[in-house]
């Protein structure tokens, strides 16, 4: 039995998260057996042969001009066609904006169970066990699948890619009819959020601000620190509800769950709904004037003090560090 991986491309580029999924598929293949096969709907081949190094033995390419941008119905047909041809043990996708939209459609078409946003997979006795955070990370649920294929979406940044130097994937054409009468949701355009902005779920470093920032104008301080660190800026629910920052920036239970290598919480007290969204970060720094703030209970390193003095000093120190590096 094979493992089928949905390869996500946007604007003719394979997205980095697909290499993370291929990496995990490669590790699973040693336990579950079978080759790792990709499936990619696209208008032109986005350089799929190179995914051999990331773990794909073969990639099925479904080419159609309509596949240039995301089309739920057409993309689902491509994945289902690949699944019917291969009869895989598991189908893996990224829990990205695209994968979160696509995976349930594929599951409903195949009548397969789907576990979304998983953070760990294991093969126990030839059976796939998927671990997924629930309640925004307050608990971890483990699920198994009564039938194959098992459908799983994997959280970005939770799995490491592999590098199999020199390996080249075989690219094969996959015939998929494009049905213009299919009930589609058509992507008209994609509006960029801003130059070089990395989405919070994919950021290596996040600097987040809470009510302690006192007003939207002071987020400039965090933008400066984020610029020096190469970080993205996040926010607490209080700040988003007050209209200081857009909802896309919210970290926590009704916002995003993030796992960066470094999370800097500035002026955030640490309400439970916020903590659940960021406690899986590798390293947490808290800057807060209240030494009793709950955020210090989860922080690896804390500074007690006035953020309006600490943050600019930190920004300057990071810049000096960069200048010497």
């Amino acid at each position, binding site marked *: 039995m094979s493992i089928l991986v949905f390869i996500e491309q946007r604007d003719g580029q394979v997205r980095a998260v697909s290499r993370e999924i291929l990496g995990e598929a490669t590790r699973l293949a040693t336990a579950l057996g079978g080759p790792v096969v990709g499936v990619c709907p696209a208008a032109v081949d986005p350089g799929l042969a190179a995914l051999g190094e990331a773990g794909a033995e073969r990639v099925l390419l479904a080419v159609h001009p309509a596949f240039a941008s995301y089309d*739920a119905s057409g993309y689902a047909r491509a994945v289902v066609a690949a699944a019917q041809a291969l009869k895989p043990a598991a189908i893996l996708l990224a829990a990205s904006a695209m994968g*979160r939209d696509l995976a349930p459609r594929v599951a409903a078409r195949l009548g397969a169970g789907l576990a979304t946003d998983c953070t760990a997979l294991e093969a126990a006795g030839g059976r796939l066990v998927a671990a997924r955070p629930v309640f925004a990370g307050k608990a971890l649920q483990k699920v198994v699948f009564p039938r194959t294929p098992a459908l799983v979406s994997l959280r970005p940044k939770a799995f490491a890619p592999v590098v199999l130097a020199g390996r080249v994937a075989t690219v094969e054409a996959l015939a998929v009819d494009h049905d213009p009468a299919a009930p589609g949701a058509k992507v008209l355009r994609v509006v960029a959020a801003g130059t070089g902005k990395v989405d919070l779920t994919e950021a290596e470093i996040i600097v987040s601000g809470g009510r302690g920032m006192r007003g939207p104008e002071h987020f400039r301080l965090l933008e400066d620190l984020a610029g020096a660190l190469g970080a993205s800026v996040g926010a607490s629910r209080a700040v988003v509800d007050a209209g200081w920052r857009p909802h896309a920036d919210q970290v926590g239970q009704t916002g995003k769950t993030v796992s960066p290598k470094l999370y800097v919480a500035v002026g955030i007290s640490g309400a439970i709904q916020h903590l659940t969204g960021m406690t899986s970060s590798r390293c947490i*720094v808290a800057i807060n004037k209240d030494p009793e703030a709950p955020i210090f209970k989860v922080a690896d390193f804390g500074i007690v003090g006035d953020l309006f003095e600490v943050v600019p000093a930190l920004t300057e120190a990071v810049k000096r560090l960069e200048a010497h590096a």
Partner: protein
Amino acid sequence: MIQAVCVKQVPDTETRVKVAADGRSFDPAGVTWVLNPYDEYAVEQALRVREQQGGEIVAVSVGGAVVPTALRNVLALGADRAVHLRTDRPAPDPLAVARALASAIRDLGAGLIWFGKQAVDDDQAQVGPMVAELLGLPCATMAASFALEGDRVTVEREVEGGREVVELALPAVITAEKGLNEPRYASLRGIMAAKKKTIEERPADLGEPNLEVVALELPPPRAAGRIVGEGAGAVAELLRALREDAKVI
């Protein structure tokens, strides 16, 4: 236009999760149940569409004894009637729920079918697009804006590093993201009126389970860290610790 709004009753976001004695389910003892926060945006948008176009809003939910409270809430906000698809299966999997909803909604003739983008308990984010697939309808997930003109819907949905603008033809399924609108509160008049509205109860047609939960675990607590110092003078020690101890910058 007839609109269906599919909702779920979930534990409040301040809930501390406890694992039940079976080691794989959530212990509901002492929990405050609320309408799923994302569903509030779905309900609100349906109400706004009805204010413009008239028609009827039908609230639908799958589950056990906690469901009527959720439905009564949606009726108080202004939905016209409700359908409770009753099951005693604890936490049925998303595809089973989608099948039950699809078979109940199929004959409504709804132009818009609304969901929250996900329930904040199991965080699966599956049921909305699954219902769309089972009914052969277009779907926009995580809608952060909504505009209806004739039988065309335009929504914006957040994607990595930007926003996608998506167009759909009615009938369609939309799942609501936070920020889609500013949900209203139920008025006293609405709460009183809701008491006279009907909640029709039918058995949920769930079919076979598609997922089996084998364990529910609490994450290991994070080891307490240390305060590296006070004020701007602590910055140097913080940077040293981040570089040399944690090795993250």
